[in-house]
């Protein structure tokens, strides 16, 4: 039985993690909840049957009461909290985005390996059938790429317990929505475990110009060994609706559309006719909806801990390149 603590009991825990964890109760037991708001921590502890609840100052004292931690705080706190947990020998599942600086990503991955603890990141969209299908399609030869488009936007109206989305430099749409969309791109292209993958930015417009920006539109190119250099446009926004998909345009005129939302398959468009690219036959996970993908995340975390395994698709070492790209976008336009 894995004893799990939750650090940060905000909207994503209330709406997602807390809904799926009870279904894993034979393998994972929540034993403690922590939040800046201790009342909120206690409420979550009651909901999940945890005996301990408290604020940040209680975490270090309580470490003997849990084996692993879900870190669901605003992104600015991911690195220092994960660092301390790894030093204490605890396994960590960090909510996305992993961290906000590539140097922190590399440091934490190395630290976790030295400490022999598991470090995973909650990029649950990797479990979507459509995303798995797209990755398998590209891995099987797919199509040589001519151009990449990354789009995702909606007016921000989802609940957030803290104001970090509008106040923290790490709370902008790039680290938030952009981390989802770009991760789908890198995972689809099989570049998630290629730390050399980089994004060269030619133009970038942000609204507001300084982080946390709420709308980012950039033109550039994605480079990686074997991929070469492919032109890319990206537009992510909290200000209004955009298409929500990664689009890969082949040199042969075909296009692969990978939806941002949960879907049963990806879509290959040939001569304007859409065709479904289904989930591969050997897929381990086939979550029927987005909530089930959160469940997959916790199944993977439990499995990685139980088996001492670093092969998970959400192992933190797979997010170093993404972190570097997100950092480059956030830093673009910032005076040196």
């Amino acid at each position, binding site marked *: 039985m894995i004893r799990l603590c939750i650090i940060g009991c905000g909207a994503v825990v209330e709406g997602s993690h807390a809904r799926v964890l009870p279904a894993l109760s034979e393998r994972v037991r929540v034993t403690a909840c922590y939040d800046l708001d201790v009342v909120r921590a206690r409420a979550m502890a009651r909901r999940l049957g945890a005996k301990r609840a408290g604020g940040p100052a209680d975490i270090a004292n309580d470490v003997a009461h849990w084996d692993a931690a879900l870190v669901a705080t605003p992104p600015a706190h991911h690195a220092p909290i994960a660092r301390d947990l790894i030093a204490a020998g605890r396994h960590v599942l960090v909510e996305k985005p992993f961290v906000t600086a590539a140097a922190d990503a590399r440091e934490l991955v190395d630290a976790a390996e030295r400490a022999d603890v598991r470090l995973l990141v909650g990029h649950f969209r990797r479990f979507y059938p459509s995303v798995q299908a797209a990755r398998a399609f590209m891995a099987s030869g797919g199509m040589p790429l001519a151009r990449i488009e990354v789009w995702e936007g909606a007016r921000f109206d989802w609940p957030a317990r803290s104001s970090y989305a509008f106040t923290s430099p790490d709370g902008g749409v790039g680290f938030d929505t952009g981390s989802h969309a770009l991760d789908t791109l890198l995972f689809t292209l099989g570049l998630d475990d290629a730390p050399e993958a980089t994004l060269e930015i030619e133009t970038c417009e942000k609204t507001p110009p300084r982080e946390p920006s709420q709308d980012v539109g950039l033109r550039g190119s994605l480079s990686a060994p074997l991929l070469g250099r492919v032109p890319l446009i990206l537009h992510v926004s909290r200000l209004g609706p955009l298409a929500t*998909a990664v689009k890969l345009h082949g040199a042969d005129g075909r296009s692969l*559309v990978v*939806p941002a939302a949960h879907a049963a398959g990806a879509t290959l468009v040939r001569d304007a*006719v859409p065709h479904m690219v289904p989930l591969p036959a050997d897929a381990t996970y086939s979550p*029927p909806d987005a909530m089930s993908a959160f469940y997959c995340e916790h199944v993977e975390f439990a499995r990685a801990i139980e088996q001492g395994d670093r092969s998970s698709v959400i192992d933190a070492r797979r997010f170093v390149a993404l972190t570097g790209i997100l950092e480059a976008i956030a830093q673009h336009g910032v005076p040196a």
Partner: protein
Amino acid sequence: MIFGATGYVGEYLVDELLGRGHEVVAVARSAALPREGVRALADDRLDTLRGRDVVVVNLAYPRAVPGLEIRAANERLLERVRRAVEATGASRLVHTSTQAVFGYEWREVPTRGAAPLVLGDSYIESKRHAEDALRRHQRRRGHDIAIVRLGNILGAGAMPWVTGVAQRILEGRPVAARAGRGRLNGTFVRNIVDYLGALIEHEGRLADGAPGVFHHLAEFTQPDWAALAEPMSNTIGVRALYREDVPSAARAGLKTIIGSAVRRFAEPLARTGAVTLVQRFRPPPAVHAFAPTAEDPGWYVVTAGDIAFPPALLDSWQPPHGFDAMLREICEWLPARGYTLHADLA
């Protein structure tokens, strides 16, 4: 005075009313609403408008609230609207509702009066609750009232009936039932705000004249969903797909496990509320033409409806914008928002 001034219809309404020369006040929890020409007032400052000729317009609706909490959130919003009417001494309240108060699947033509009780969907129930609550308040206080039930809202960026259709076309998901069935029952946002403007400026009591308290606005009942989807499909560059069968509303509320392709389970099945969990299945091999799934049956129920939403409007009003003009605006909007297969930054 507008509740919901920053929403989709709200932004168009603000422009419309400023264009008509009215002073527009947006009610906000804080007074920091950054919109030129619009004053923001917090709820506790509304009495400063007393003595002015005020019409309160409610476009707001609780958003991003879990289904079980919608009623309480709705009641809190309605209380703010009622207080605004009383604090300002408003002569008239214009409240926007929806044709969905009659349900998503109609078996008979919706009536002009109070909607029958339709249970089982928190959105429908909360919209009807709002109509009833504001009507009861109006009867007690005696101010004028118009409750405008809107059809499916259409326009550049309208969610979900334009963005959802566009996204489905791009992804190769069926847009609607077989082409030729399913009335659009739509209303263009520019016509909506023109009508709301007409209601705001109307001389005489709306509640006592024709069509009475309840107004029905869906000027595009005749076109089917293909009339919207096909021009969008031509712009997007992906063929629109339609599904042949239409699920009934009885199945629309169920969460379905992936159907006949299930072979065996990778994990024991468990339920957390309405959440269905991991299972393994063997999908058919190779790429094939997209087969409609049982996903989001509610969408297909609405888009298959073949009963026209009957109009109930001021005799003097005609929609200023036609269907083709609306389509042009929508299709011009699509590329810069990424909905075309090959899109670029604006």
